[in-house]
């Protein structure tokens, strides 16, 4: 027996469910690839398939951890628990992770799950959820500072993103998305602000006026321009707050930040 070959095979088996199929269908080829004797291949095939699948899922879920699960929990909740496990194994077969690379694999996983929703009669509605979580994931990426550094003014912070989705924001944020709710409430626009804290994305529900104001601040505006935009929005959306109050609130929360040399 050669421990090195066995360790290599077992570790590959724990991260690649597809290898388990290969071992069943083409044992000689797997044996050759890992330098195993016929007897050793026989021992490998004695290992319980359900137990190894369970171990593969344990590893994948542990690696994903709470941090990355936050970016997929809404989408995975659209599937039944048994289907989730099957889908995870299928994904792992296509995306072997020799080390923990969930950080980079989240968009692929969401695309993969979105594709699996295609057959649903509500596909167009359900696929909005992986789209939301892909946006959520992008909020966690280190963004380039918004706007040109040559222009001074007030601009949306690079740690903040806003987006409009065809569902009420509160449920998107909490992740409480039963099928009935998704079908009935699809089309109600929700506005969500995602703020990267350095370790996680904090989500906030915002109203249409703040959403509009923030989308207009992707390029730097002088204070005068900013107040004029806020005033135009305030009037259009018939808000009680003054333009000054709206701007002040965003500055205090560091959602809008000054760049270059600005005068208050």
């Amino acid at each position, binding site marked *: *027996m*050669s*421990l*090195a070959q*066995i*360790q*290599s095979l*077992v*570790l*590959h088996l*724990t*991260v690649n469910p597809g290898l388990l199929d290969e071992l069943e269908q083409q044992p000689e080829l797997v044996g050759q690839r890992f330098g195993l004797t016929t*007897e*050793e291949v026989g*021992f490998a095939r*004695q*290992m*319980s398939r359900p*137990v*190894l699948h*369970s*171990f593969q899922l*344990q*590893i994948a879920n*542990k*690696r994903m951890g709470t941090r990355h699960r936050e970016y997929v929990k809404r989408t995975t909740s659209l599937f039944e628990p048994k289907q989730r496990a099957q889908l995870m194994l299928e994904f792992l077969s296509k995306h072997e992770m*020799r*080390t*923990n690379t969930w950080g980079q694999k989240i968009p692929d996983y969401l695309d993969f799950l979105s594709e699996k929703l295609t057959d649903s009669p509500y596909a167009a509605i359900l696929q909005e959820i992986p789209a939301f979580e892909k946006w959520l994931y992008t909020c966690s990426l280190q963004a380039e500072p918004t706007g040109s550094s040559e222009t001074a003014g007030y601009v949306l912070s690079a740690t903040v993103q806003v987006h409009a989705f065809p569902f009420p924001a509160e449920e998107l944020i909490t992740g409480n998305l039963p099928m009935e709710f998704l079908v009935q409430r699809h089309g109600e626009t929700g506005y969500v602000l995602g703020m990267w804290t350095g370790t996680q994305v904090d989500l906030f529900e915002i109203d249409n006026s703040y959403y509009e104001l923030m989308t207009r601040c992707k390029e730097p505006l002088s204070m005068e321009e900013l107040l004029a935009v806020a005033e135009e929005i305030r009037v259009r959306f018939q808000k009680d707050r003054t333009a000054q109050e709206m701007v002040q609130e965003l500055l205090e929360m560091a959602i809008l930040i000054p760049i270059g040399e600005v005068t208050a």
Partner: protein
Amino acid sequence: MARGVGVGFRPEFAGQSEQVLKHVDFLEYNQRRSLEMVRQDLTPYLGQIPVVIHSLNLSLGSVQPPPEHRLEAIKRTADLVDASWVSEHLSYCRHDDIEVDNFIALPYTDESIEIVSRHIINLKNLLGRPVIMENITHSFVWPDKQYSEAEFIKRVLEKADCGLLLDVTNLYLNSTTHGYDPYEFLQTIPADRVVQLHLAGHSEVDGQMVDSHVGGIDATVLGYTEWILKHTACDAMTIERDSEMSSFDDLLDDLQLCRELYTKYGKSPISK
């Protein structure tokens, strides 16, 4: 030297050092990457109670030796806290460029004994302190084996001349899952090699028993613990808790249970 009733240190204990020191005889500390983090976590305890280091990622059972930087990091930590001993898992989790966070049982063979013992001895020499090895919980083992799990562990302990961190919950889960007699296991392990115990609550998920480190240590586990305290040299027990815990206070019930057992069988009671 660490002895008595200890707990695995967790970040949730932050700001509760007085409470911890009141109830605990020693701390078990999971190795962290930066020495600065270690200092931050342990400053209130250093010099107050003994500390032991629990390592998670050396993979001493791998054919390939542990990475130098990890060995150096654990030495720095052990030296900083003047660890009574360093523990690691009797398993492997790495080969070439594949590494997982879960522990995999070694094949119970002479070759495994040879390799893991060599790595344990090297670690002991590097640290200049005792190293003890923990029995892991496992759902599968390489089917070609020369020894039972207990016989394999015994041979490793003797060849590497090291102690055992006996995880009693793992013993309970493994003996139930794989259908062996836990007392036969305990009688196989040399009584003078059992240095420390791990105790934790477990869960059942989809019919599988999981070492989830929740609260509420099972009565069967406590029963095995009594046997161990009565029949072995073990003088240190540790509660592991990673779930359903918001602060140190959540451990008090389990600590009380362990304290009662320790007092009943303790070789040299500790006055708190």
